Structures are given as structure tokens and as C-alpha cells.
């Protein structure tokens, strides 16, 4: 029975989840670009492509660097929590040794890997950061007022694969149960990315690119060094 479930979630369900994830992400990015409208957005995207691209790159780059913008520097504690959370979220699933072994078994290739110790540290980082993100939502009036149950749900979807994976890897409790839970929660996350707020996985880049072009073309980028993010 357990083996059947395992086969199912690592077989057809996994294919489905990855399929939805990859296609979904591409579709979201494509729809975003298709929905840009020079007159409605009031940005001459194509007429000043060079300034636009420059602004887009500057805008994305500045925000990807911890403390790279005024805003990151203004909220140092949040910035550390934020980057701990997101770096772990991206690095662990892609470079985990266990995942690489799976890839090799299935497709005959692996990715460079990080040590299990680093993976553990990053995973603990993700989970700790998530706790702080929840506490922050509860504690700060300016965050509490905009928080909805949906924000917690999205956070739970993102953290669940880490918690279950950690429990499975360290053989805490029933290994098979946590392993299967890990796979299922991971698949839920993959599917959720295109359809929920987690779509910011790709839309962050789209939105930042757009506002970078806005500032680069229209709001002074052609008359000054460009926005000091």
C-alpha cells in the first residue's frame, strides 16, 4: 500500500505537478508581457527599449541583493529574515543531495549539490524565518492590518515541504509517512505557484522589470542616472 502511494506520487503525480509548474510559470510570464499596454501603463516600452532594459536590469539587480536598496536597509531585521527564507527556499530543493540522486536515477543527470549539513542549516533557516514572519504579522499593527488567512496559507504551503523533508531526513517519527508527506507537500507547492500568490516566484521579476522600465523610460531615467532604489 505504502509502496503504491510512493509510486503514484513519485510517478504520474510528480510528472503532473512539474508539468503544471513549468507550463504555469511560463504562461504567467507570457500573459504578463502580453498584458502590458503602453498607453494604459503610460510607459513607451518599445520606443525606448534601451533605456527600458537598462532600468529593468538595474531594478531587478538592486532588489536581489540583500541591503541593496534603501528599502532593504530601512528594515534590516526583516531583510535578514526575508533573504534567509527565500535563499533556503530556492537553494535546498534544487541542490539537495537526495534530490540529485533521484534526478540521476530517473534522468541520468544530477545537479551540483550542497552538503547535508548546509541543507539542514538552510532548512532550519527557512523554518525559523517562517516563524518570525508569522510573529511579525501578528506583532506589527501595520502588517497585521493587511494580513489575511490567505497569507498564512501561502506561507504554510511554502514551509510544509521543508518541515516534512526535515523530519523524514532525520528519521523523526515514521519515515515513510514523512517522506510521502514531503513529496505530496512539495507537489502541492509546485502546483500552487502558478495559481496563488506564490506566482511571485516569476511575477516578481516581471513586475520589477516593468517598474524598472517605467522609471528608466518615463520617470526620469532618460534625464538622470536612474532611480536610486
Amino acid at each position, binding site marked *: 500500500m505504502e509502496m503504491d502511494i510512493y509510486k503514484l506520487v513519485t510517478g504520474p503525480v510528480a510528472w503532473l505537478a512539474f508539468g503544471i509548474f513549468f507550463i504555469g510559470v511560463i504562461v504567467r510570464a507570457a*500573459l*504578463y*508581457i*502580453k*498584458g*502590458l*499596454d*503602453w*498607453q*494604459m*501603463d*503610460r*510607459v*513607451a516600452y518599445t*520606443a*525606448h527599449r534601451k533605456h527600458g532594459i537598462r532600468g529593468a536590469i538595474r*531594478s531587478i539587480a538592486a*532588489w536581489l541583493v540583500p541591503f541593496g536598496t*534603501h*528599502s532593504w536597509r*530601512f*528594515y534590516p531585521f*526583516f531583510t535578514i529574515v*526575508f533573504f534567509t527564507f527565500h535563499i533556503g527556499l530556492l537553494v535546498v530543493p534544487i541542490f539537495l543531495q537526495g534530490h540529485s540522486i533521484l534526478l540521476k536515477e530517473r534522468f541520468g543527470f544530477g545537479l551540483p549539490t550542497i552538503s547535508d549539513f548546509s541543507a539542514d542549516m538552510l532548512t532550519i533557516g527557512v523554518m525559523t524565518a517562517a516563524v518570525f514572519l508569522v510573529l511579525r*504579522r501578528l506583532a*506589527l*499593527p*501595520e*502588517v*497585521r*492590518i*493587511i*494580513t*489575511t488567512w490567505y*497569507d498564512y496559507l501561502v506561507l504554510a504551503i511554502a514551509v510544509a515541504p521543508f518541515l516534512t523533508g526535515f523530519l523524514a531526513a532525520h528519521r523523526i517519527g515514521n519515515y515513510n509517512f514523512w517522506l510521502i508527506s514531503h513529496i505530496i507537500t512539495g507537489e502541492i507547492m509546485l502546483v500552487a505557484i502558478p495559481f496563488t*500568490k506564490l*506566482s*511571485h516566484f516569476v*511575477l*516578481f521579476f*516581471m*513586475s*520589477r522589470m*516593468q*517598474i*524598472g522600465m*517605467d522609471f528608466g*523610460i*518615463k*520617470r*526620469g*531615467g*532618460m*534625464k*538622470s542616472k*536612474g*532611480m*536610486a*532604489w
Partner: protein
Amino acid sequence: MALGKLCNREPVNTLEQLQELLNDKGGKQYYEEMSDLDVDQALLWNTIQKTIKAKSRIKTWLEICAHCGMCADSCFLYLANNKDPEQVPSYKIQSTLGEIVKRKGKVDNAFMQKVMDTAWSKCTCCNRCGLYCPFGIDMGVMFSYLRGLCFQQGFIPWEMKIGSGMHRVFRAQMDVTTEDWVETCEWMAEEWEEDWPGLEIPVDKENADILYTVNAREPKHYPEDLAEAAVLFHLAGENWTVPSEGWEETSLAMFAGDWEGCKLQVQSVYDAMKRLNPKRMVVTECGHAYRATVIEGPYWAGLKDGQTPIPSLHYVEWVAEALRTGKLKIDPAKRIKEPVTYQDSCNYIRNAGLADCAREIMSYIAEDFREMTPNREHNFCCGGGGGFNGIGRYRKERNIGLKVKCDQILATGAKLVISPCHNCWDAIRDLEEVFEVGIRWSFLKPLLLKMVIVPDHLKPSEEE
């Protein structure tokens, strides 16, 4: 009652309609009628579907806002109101536009009045929050859009309805007609010609180097501003002109969310450019005027490259250039000796990148220039932007909003604030009235006139 006599979904297009609104002192009847105004839910939803449902930017912004609260401290109104959570930009837009979208336009009168109050008294569209959001979500852009929805439904402050009507009827925010304007030009030239031999305010001269355009308040309330501009052009030896029509740069229609009115207004200026064929346009010391006509205007008018038909400069750009090239020379003995600070206008600095010109000017004219903190693109709104200054209904909220700027100015230790923007200038004047902190404020023109070296052959006749 579906539609009121004064408060309705029809924009003001005739002088009679405008007069009726003006006769309604303080908008008393107007706001009474607003309480009975129906929301055209079908129209509202239809507009949203046509504009944002299919379009990326605002739709995505509403969807992916992570509710992180990093926009909170970026908003001067949040800070001025003791960090009231209801002033968090994300909250303000989610609880208004976000809610309308979520409810598919099925909102009632009370809700729309709340939306109106939020759109005009809790956001000046200064776009500062857009700079601090990790996703680059710009609540100023969304509030601007929301104001458009409000305008279409008739839920706009009385003064904004009048303002947009003024542009539709007169192509000027104040009831200044072509005759009034041309007369003012002639009158000012005559009056100041005695002191400045050869001074002219040429109207409708073709092929000039500079087409000068203004804020209607100048001819209406302080025509000497026009004369000062004329003297400075005269001293700089510029070949310039003003258009008889299409001379008004401001756009209360933009503050009102009347996009059709915006287009009509800005088209009048572009027509003047085409008619008179000048090389460049210089806009007076006004922030929103520059933004409306130079930054946003081309899009309203459907110009695909987002540029005005001829290159357009804000006054600070012209002054910086004139000082740099030596067209205007400053008498070193007359430079400003006292500590002086500079108000960065959101509209031509954050929205047009002109922070450097302002600093360049200060390097020529001030000996003890002190920056506000923060400054340049990160400066706070004066508290009077986006039409806030002019709306009686929100006077109290506006006055609270002035506090951040007041503290910023006081922290510099300067008593003099240079402010080449009408709205900032007004806000600073008003903050002195409210807080009585003993500061003075000035446009550039009168300061420059006191400092500039006058070539012998242009000296005022009394010295001859």
C-alpha cells in the same frame, strides 16, 4: 435619486454647469446630492474589465502584494498620522480598489464615498511607496486609476469637479480666457518695461527658441511671476514667446481622474507647439504641470514615443542651463548667505529625474545649502500634492499631512525654503500658517532677479 443636479456622472462641459457648481458655496448641495447618488455597478465593472482585468500591471499588483508592510514607512501620511495602520499604502488600496475588484463592482454609495475620501485625502499620488515595495507596486499609480473610476461615477470632491470643468471649458484650471491671458501679458510687459528697457512678452511669435508656458494661477493671482520670467529671459538674451492659446500647463483634470479632460488640456499645448514651431518648451515653476504636460501628457494624447512634440524643460532645467552656460550670471556678493533648503517636488524629481538640476542651481546661488533628510528621489511629499491643497472637505487631513515636511525643514536649521513648484509652495506657506515655525518660502524667479548681474545696456532706466 439616481443623479443629482450638481453631483452626477456627467463631466462639466459648459459655462452654465460650471457656474452652477461655483454658486453652490462649499459644495453644500453637491455633497447632499452625493449621498443619494447611485453607483452604476455595471459601468464600474465593465470599465474595470476593459482596463485592468485584462491588463497586467495593476491586476498583478493587486494579486501578488505579499502584505509585508514595507510600504508603511514610505508614506508621509502614515507617518504624519502617528503610524495609523489604516494609512498603510497597501491597506488603503486593498480596502478600496482591491475590494471593488473582489466584489466585481457591486459596491454601494457609502462604499464609494469611503473610496473617494481615501483616494483624495489619504494619497497624493506622490509615488514614493512604489520606490520601497520589493515588487515595485506603485500605489500612487493605482490611486490615480481609482480616481478615474470615482470620476466616472461622480464620486469626486466638489473642487475637483470644478477643476476638471475649468479645463474642459477654458483649457485652464482657472477661468482665464485667451483675452485675459493676452491682456495680462501686454499689461505686465508695459508695466515692467519702464524698469527693463526693451522688455517684451511676445505672444504667438513663430519659430522662437523657447515656448514659455505657465500655471494659470500666475496670470490670475500673481502676474508679476510672468513679468519676472520675462525679465530673466530678457537678461539671458533668449528668443522666446508665449502662445495665446495652449499656454496652460496644469491639469486639475489629472488630479480629478478625468482622463478625457486631461487629453483636451494637453492637446491644446501640443497644438500650440505645432502652430508656432518653437525649438523647445520651458514650463514654469510647477511640478504637477510639468508632470501632466510633459511626463503623462504624451500618453493621453496617444504619442507612441511618450515624448512631447518638441523637447520640454522644467524651469529648473532652464535655470541650471542658463547658469551653466553663463546666459545668466550671479553676483557673488548677492548669493544667499543664510542657511537655505530646497523642496524636491515629487512630480518633477521622483517622476522626471530632475534632482541634479536643482542641486546645480543651488551651487550657483546659495552659500549654505542644506539638504533635507531624506532628499532627491526619496524626499517626502510636501503634504499638498495631488489636489490635497485645494479640497475644503479634507482641510483637516491636509493640515496633519503637512507635519512631516515641517519637521524635515526644521531639522535643516534653514529658515528659507526654495520651492519651484506651486503646490509645494502653497503647502509650505500653509504649514507656516498652521505651525508658526518662522520659515519663509520662495520660487526661484524672485531670488534670481535679486542676484543676477544685469548687463549695462539692459540696466533699468532709473540708473541711467
